[in-house]
């Protein structure tokens, strides 16, 4: 055990020419560790299911998610409408499927934007330090100093109600700061570590040091942060919709469906239960996946069994 671990450390710290075998081995082992985490695997299954259902929505449902039918409002769940109908007579299950497209993509895309920006900025700040660090961190401070909801509200007004694209960009622009701090912290503490010194001492260039040594070791917190970020973005979208500023009807999103349902809860609880349930399922799955990833990607975790 001990020898294996220390040899891994050694291997990571020395700038040997990139050995594809070793790279594959590291990630495959992470993959296997991930599979040990039952909840995370369950999370992947559930999330994949949700994603597939949403993607194939038109094939799965004969109904149009936006077609109103005033004669059928508030029908409770039945064979023809497995989740019942909403306040305008639309089939709830269909809306859930189409809504999944919106809610899930908002989450993923917004965080993609945030992570890219955050890693870039945090990495540069952490690695180069000194005045670059100072300037970038002031930018981070400035962005962080705006209460997020404040800007989201104002953008909502400015863009006259937010479309998917706008929400993704705005959320991404407002969510990269924690990632950048994380990455910066990791870079800051890693760049002075022995293995980096070792790499430098044999003449490795900055670019290589970052790409081959620092970045892979900071990937773990980034990936975990990204996964949790997606969960957070989905919740933020639903909160925005609750305030009336998110995706505008008639386009369904789980968030705006939940908002409409809160005042109908006593009459038609299914209109509230299902969107809430799906948000919950998606977010819980993503959180489990993130947890699994965290355990899988940091080899030091698993070996701890004292």
């Amino acid at each position, binding site marked *: 055990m001990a020898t294996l671990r220390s040899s891994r450390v050694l291997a990571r710290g020395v700038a040997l020419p990139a050995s594809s075998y070793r790279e594959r081995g590291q990630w495959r082992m992470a993959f296997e560790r991930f599979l040990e985490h039952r909840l995370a695997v369950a999370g992947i299954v559930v999330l994949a299911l949700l994603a597939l259902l949403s993607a194939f929505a038109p094939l799965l449902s004969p109904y149009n998610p936006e*077609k*109103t039918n*005033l004669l059928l409002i508030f029908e409770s769940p039945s064979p023809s409408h497995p989740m019942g109908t909403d306040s305008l007579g639309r089939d709830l299950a269909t809306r859930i499927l189409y809504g999944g497209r919106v809610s899930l993509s908002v989450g993923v895309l917004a965080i993609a934007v945030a992570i890219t920006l955050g890693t870039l900025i945090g990495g540069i700040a952490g690695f180069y330090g000194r005045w670059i660090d100072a300037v970038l961190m002031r930018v981070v401070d400035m962005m962080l100093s705006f209460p997020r909801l404040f800007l989201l509200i104002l953008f909502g007004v400015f863009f006259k*109600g937010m479309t998917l694209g706008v929400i993704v960009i705005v959320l991404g622009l407002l969510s990269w700061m924690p990632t950048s701090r994380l990455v910066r912290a990791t870079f800051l503490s890693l760049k002075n570590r022995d293995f980096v010194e070792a790499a430098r001492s044999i003449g490795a260039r900055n670019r290589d040091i970052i790409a081959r040594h620092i970045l892979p070791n900071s990937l773990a917190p980034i990936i975990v942060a990204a996964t949790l970020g997606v969960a957070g973005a989905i919740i933020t979208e639903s909160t925005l919709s609750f*305030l009336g500023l998110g995706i505008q009807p*008639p386009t369904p999103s789980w968030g705006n469906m939940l908002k409409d349902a809160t*005042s109908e*809860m*006593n009459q038609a609880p299914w209109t509230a239960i299902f969107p809430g349930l799906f948000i919950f399922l998606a977010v819980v799955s993503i959180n489990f996946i993130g947890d699994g990833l965290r355990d899988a990607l940091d080899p030091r975790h698993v070996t701890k069994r004292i």
Partner: protein
Amino acid sequence: MKRFSIVLASVALVVAACTPTPGGTPASGTPAASEGPTRGGTLIFAMWQEPTTLAPPYLNQTIAGLVSQVAVEGLTRTDTDGKYQPLLAKSVPDINNGGVKLSADGKKMDVTYELLSGVTWSDGNPFTSADVKFTWENRMKDPKVVNRAGYDQIESIDTPNDTTAVMHFKSVYAPYPVLFPFLLAKHIAEKEADLSKSDYNQRPLGTGPFKFTEFVAGDHITAERNPNYRDKTKPYLDKIIFKSVPASEVAIAQLKAGEVQAMWNILESQTPDLEKESAIKLVITPSPSVERVELNTAANKDMTDPTSVHPVLGDVAMRKALVWATPKQQLVDKLLFGKAKPGASGYSQGWAKYTGPPQDGYDPKKANDELDKAGWVKGSDGIRSKGGVRASLTITSTTGNKTREQVEQVLSDEYKQIGVELKIQNQPSSVFLSGSWSAGDPRKRGTFDLNMYATSPDIDPHTHIFTRFHSSQIPSAANSGLGNNYTRLRSPDVDKAIDDGGATLDLEKRKAAYNTAVKGINDAYVIIWLYERASIDAFRTNVGGWQGNVWDNITWNSGDWYLKK
């Protein structure tokens, strides 16, 4: 850790058990006679919007007026039939009882108010005609006053004695009885250099059954019994507390739980739930507010071309079709749970109400035929076009209003059936209803095809109908956005009828004139009167004495409210 949680939980249970059940503190004393109001008790009234200020000159929100009314009174009020009643005045002056005198040339008038004697403000100081005069002077001087319409028609006010105020108008201003709905206390207000920055905003002085004692922003406003009220038997309640509950779902829960005993402005969609509760009574009062869809007949933004015509809506056949494709009754039944009436005109209540033939009803076949006849041909996507112009329109209304969103979706669907594409483009009310040319209110600028919102005329409809349908009131760059004629209606017949209505004091003649105007508006098919809303409030069954009023807030008779034992 677990220990901590257990302790926390048990503390919670103990605490919960130790507190008396919430509920309006019942009246003490007299065992209940089943009839007759009992004296005493505190009533908690939930409001989902809260007043920012209560001072009369700055009142703008409905809720601010509603709350103010329990303490601050005016010269007259309007009863549910739309008739003026005296409040602090002995009688309502008009041309028949000599209270209103026209000048020799008929162009000016004097209105004399005889005030009740022996009335005092809640701090004990006497209420006199000087207060009336001061109220008017303040209106004209204070730059932050909300509106001056009507007050600017008064040249001067004489106060020959403490109970008489003579107002000299420089024109014949027909709506004079609605002026002075709230009076200022001169002896307090005159001491302030800037009234808007004083405590008067939160606790204005009044002559009404209650007086304000506490204003905790964001939380509650307390009004206690006025010991100096002129009717010594009233008010029955000791206190009314207006509680701020921003989430209406929570307010309803509080109403059901008995934490609050009354609630303002219930949505139609919340009524089915409340109707099932035996302990709650809904007060449904028809209101003059009409939700409407306005059709923009001009194309030009900013109205730089006074003759501009909308490419799609300029065609009256298209407008007719849209009216005929609107399922008003269905909207009322399904979205408003029957708690409204399909719109017949914009002036549905009061002495000036429209009694002519109502607007056309739902007939989609007729709509389709009309469009076919007019040369609008359906394309492969089902949308019509004529002369290269596609029948694609947008509808704009306020965000965050569920009923409106639902209506828009239904309309979008219905119009698709007749081959018209309707896209929804809502904006927050701070933009869409800003009423400001410079701030870019789309209605002013003309940057809309269809818009939807609600507005209600005053008991005297003149200002309303004039600014909204007279051709001189089309906002444009040339007149810096003056006027509210958003449909850009240009009809000489309607203009004449409106002018006639404002030119005389004879109520019968005015009513006829306004009726003619509304018929003209309906025949021009520039506006779809969607539905006439009801105002819905709720009381728990242990509250008595309240009464709905079409023209006034539910608190108009707060002095009569009581809590049953």
